[in-house]
């Protein structure tokens, strides 16, 4: 008996892993996702190179290619785009292109670190809350709802006012703000996965509750949260840029796209290029993450397939033709999917919800 169930569990684990791999493979068929991946990869390269450049090489690369992003030049204030400065210069005569390249460090760092904090905080709290249930669940969820009910930017601005404007505080503030959304997604995932039969099997096999939670439930619920993370990467980058734009985020002389727009506002009439390019970069970056996230979500959703229209119905059909032991889809699963509050819908609502904030 016990050997039987443990094989079941292993099979399930195997399926989960191959499921994620299959998802990534399926991504290749989505033009949107591949476009997003391309954009994100280019930005990553840009960010890594400029980090190496500033930390190890004392800006040697950027100087040889364009100009020192921090070097001021009073003779070149608000110079329009030219061969020397392809995107013009700002109010201190600094090269906008060089600053935009360096700005990718800040944008990606905020995206990745803040989303990371929100992700781990949210997954831990949400899974714990769902697994404990009862009043622990109630208290945690009410606390997270509290955090959720103050609009994100307002909460972030208040936190930045307390902590003082700096890029590290920005990571922290946006990390905290992200927690409730992840917690909600993983919580609903855990609640629905907990009802699955293989969890009963694991219990019957005598696995401890925490082992079941960390080894069986969380890994299976993670895919939904991963989609959420990719999609919220964009909104975190916009949010953090908005904070810098409002003067609460990254401080000079660090190059950040939001901060560049802040100073650009007053010079919009005479030097529009200072406003156009940083904003365009934010747009492209966020678009990249959103395209990737969108593709990822489609790929993970068993009901849609990226390969060709209506393939899903067909694959199911072909499956049945190939393997008649699989019965016609009948009964409870189908109509459960139709009710508004089934786990599936709750998950979609939650992932959709993650696009905002």
């Amino acid at each position, binding site marked *: 008996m016990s050997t039987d169930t443990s094989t079941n569990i292993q099979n399930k684990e195997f399926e989960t892993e191959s499921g994620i791999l299959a998802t990534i493979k399926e991504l290749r068929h989505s033009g*949107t996702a591949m476009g997003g991946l391309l954009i994100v990869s280019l930005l990553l390269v840009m960010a890594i190179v400029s980090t190496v450049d500033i930390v190890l090489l004392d800006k040697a690369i950027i100087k040889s290619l364009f100009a020192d992003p921090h070097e001021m030049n009073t003779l070149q204030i608000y110079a329009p785009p030219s061969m020397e400065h392809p995107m013009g210069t700002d109010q201190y005569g600094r090269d906008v292109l060089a600053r935009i390249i360096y700005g990718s460090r800040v944008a990606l760092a905020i995206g990745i670190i803040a989303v990371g904090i929100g992700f781990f905080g949210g997954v831990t709290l949400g899974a714990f809350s769902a697994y404990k249930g009862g009043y622990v669940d109630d208290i945690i969820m*009410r*606390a997270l*709802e*509290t*955090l*959720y*009910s*103050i*609009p*994100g*930017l*307002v*909460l972030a*601005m*208040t*936190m930045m*006012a*307390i902590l*003082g404007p700096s890029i590290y505080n920005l990571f922290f503030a946006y990390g905290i703000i992200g927690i409730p959304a992840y917690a909600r997604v993983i919580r609903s995932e855990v609640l629905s996965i907990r009802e699955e039969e293989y969890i009963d099997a694991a219990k019957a096999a005598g696995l401890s509750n925490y082992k079941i939670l960390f080894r069986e439930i969380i890994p299976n619920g993670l895919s939904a949260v991963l989609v959420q993370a990719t999609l919220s990467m*964009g909104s975190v980058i*916009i*949010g953090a*840029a*908005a904070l810098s*734009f*409002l003067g*609460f985020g990254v401080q000079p002389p660090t190059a950040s796209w939001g901060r560049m*727009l802040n100073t*650009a*506002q007053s010079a*919009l*009439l005479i030097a*529009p290029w200072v*406003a*156009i390019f*940083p*904003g365009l970069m*934010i*747009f492209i970056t*966020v*678009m990249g993450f*959103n*395209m990737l996230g969108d593709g990822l979500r489609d790929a993970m959703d068993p*009901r849609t397939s990226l390969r060709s*229209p*209506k393939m899903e119905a067909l694959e199911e059909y072909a499956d049945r033709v190939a393997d008649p032991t699989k019965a016609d889809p009948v009964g409870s699963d*189908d109509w459960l999917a*139709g*009710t*508004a*509050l089934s786990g599936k*819908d709750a998950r*979609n*609502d939650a992932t*959709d*919800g993650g*696009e*905002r*904030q």
Partner: protein
Amino acid sequence: MSIYRYSARRILQIIPVLLGVFSLTFVMVHALPGNPVRIYLGLNPSQSLEQELLAEYGFNQPLWKQYLDYLWRLLHGNIGESFVRKEPVSELMLARLGPTVTLMGLSYAIALPSALLLGVYAAATHNELGDHVSRFFGLAGLSTPNFWLGLMLIFIMAYQFDVLPASGYVPFTQDPVASIKHLILPVITLATAQTATLMRMTRSSMVEELSKDYVQTARAYGLPERRILLKHAFRNALLPLVTIIGLQLSFLLDGSVVIEQIFAIPGMGRLGYNGLLQQDYGVIIGLNIFFAILFLIGVLITDLAYAYIDPRIRYD
């Protein structure tokens, strides 16, 4: 569960959250660096006056007592006083409610119908050209930072073509035409991301509904496609959307802070923003609490609407 019991329970559920918001705000404000009355006193405060003021506002009391006083005051609708403007915060906030609500209301009034229309259209042309175009614009709208969009609109419409004012706010009662002219750019800025988000959700909700069995039934009974789309699928697709619309309010409130700043609209967001810059305790409390309450009311309304339009009131 009856709809009345559901509503009552839903309203009761807000109380602990509200208490949480009050407490969180208290903690945050007391964590602010610096002395709360320093700003009140200006550049050269005298020691004795500072002590006097601290005592007057109860800042020298033990924290727990300050906390209880604070809750007590909030229960009586008294948020406190702005040390910068030397006026009660609730009056300051309410005086600025008009522009903010106008901006948000108009944005929703534009975003919602266009999002529903585009979303249904995209779903109806699922995987065809129309769908791909709508999806692209949906993603693009979602990816455009509103503060940048605002700046670009000002640059183009006000500076390049000089057709609309770059910033400012005129109350509708004072001069309707000028009022509308001043509102066009901010409303478009705020509505763009809203439209994109809601459109994407409408689309995915519609696509899901159109794959359901009852749609197949309707088709097998020869009902016209338009009727299936609008009367059958749309009614169902609307249900998850209603909840989302409430939650989107948070996004709108955030947007109003940024947009009021860019377009110099004298609303609550701008007041709060300045309060934060000046470390004005009362205004910071007011900003957090007011925005949280507006959000919670919005969510409550949409939740109740959901319970009303969904015949299966099966909550929990």
